[in-house]
């Protein structure tokens, strides 16, 4: 199952290479993504109806259409499109007579920069949980579970042996489960 970012990236590459079908697919994916994204931004700003959100989504789609050349291929598509959406949300918000304060602008920061933004804040929570572990348990978990490295790669990176990395993950997960008490965490997935 491909992630949204992978699907978007593929459609974007093909559309930029000159494939009209891929372009339609890109627009459809973006429209779906934008719908939830824009609604969430509006609700964080404390307002905006669904009709407002749809207007902004359409504005954003038109901008995307006329500004495809501004996509920077070295960044994920979601980062690019979220930046455009953010600009359009602020624009609409200002146009409706609101005055944005810096604090409210800052509330968007993680929408812009974090590719894992489908569930904002989750990564921060995970990192906070992990920070309670000692290094020899935390690093293997970060490498293998969060960054997606293999056990061998993590071992090479940290200078630990492979079995030490495996043991670290196992014990780390156990300790997290004991500390925070959620049954799901106890699953020693290898």
């Amino acid at each position, binding site marked *: 199952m491909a992630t949204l970012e992978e699907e978007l990236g593929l459609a974007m590459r093909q*559309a*930029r290479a*000159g494939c*009209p079908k891929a*372009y*339609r697919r890109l*627009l*459809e994916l973006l*429209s779906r993504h934008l719908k939830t994204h824009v609604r969430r931004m509006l609700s964080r700003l404390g307002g905006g109806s*669904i*009709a407002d959100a*749809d207007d902004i*989504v*359409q504005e954003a*789609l*038109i*901008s995307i*259409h006329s*500004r*495809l*050349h*501004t*996509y*920077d*291929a070295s*960044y994920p598509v979601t*980062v*690019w499109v*979220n*930046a*455009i959406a*953010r*600009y359009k949300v602020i*624009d609409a918000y200002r146009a409706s007579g609101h005055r944005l304060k810096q604090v409210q602008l800052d509330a968007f920061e993680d929408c*812009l920069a974090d590719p894992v933004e489908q569930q904002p804040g989750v990564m921060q929570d995970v990192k906070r949980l992990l920070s309670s572990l000692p290094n020899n348990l935390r690093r293997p978990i970060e490498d293998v579970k969060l960054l997606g490295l293999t056990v061998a790669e993590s071992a090479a990176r940290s200078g630990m042996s492979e079995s030490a990395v495996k043991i670290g993950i196992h014990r780390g997960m156990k300790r997290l489960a004991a500390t925070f008490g959620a049954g799901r965490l106890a699953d020693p997935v290898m």
Partner: protein
Amino acid sequence: MTNLDTDQLIDSLAAQYRPVDTAWIERVSGLLILAGFLVSASLIWLTIGFRTDLVIALETGRILTKYVFMLASVGLAGRIFVHMARPGYRIQSQARIYGVPLGFILVAILIQFQFAGEPTRAMVLGETGNWLACMAIVPVLSVVPMAGLLAILRRSAPTDLTGAGFAAGMFAATIAALAYAAHCPCDTPVFVGLWYPIAFLISAGIGAALAPRLARW
């Protein structure tokens, strides 16, 4: 109802598909800045003229520090500009790379102090009010290329409009300065490293003030 609208919009946008010109920003701003240089250099040549010792200065390499600084400034300001024209970039993180030419000129200033001791008044201010001429002429010459760069921003998608305008003003000023450098008789690193960046900042400030109005999209 609204869903239908969005679907219709997608239909019509998809029907208008045309191949994407991925390097549009780079190409158009490159051409614009080249034209800006030629126009600025011609204007200077026709009005205040190039410095009479330009050939000698080039041959002896006395002017080298100045031109290295100018060319690095043009290149890096251009790089910052093409980034700022795209969504998601902020000037705070982009402006950092301009530390490279500033660092270079700082080293040149220190080397100069080593050899020439304390800077004299002429080394800092130029011979006869050159510093004022530099700060006035560079921003004036930068106005036309800046207008072109703001038009490019309008057709791009800068999300930090103030920052993008700052970058546009800066880029335009560096190209104006490159042209003006052929007139300006002051080659000392202190002069170049002090007054030219101030002139750049004046233009950048103008760009930053104008862009939120003129480059909206």
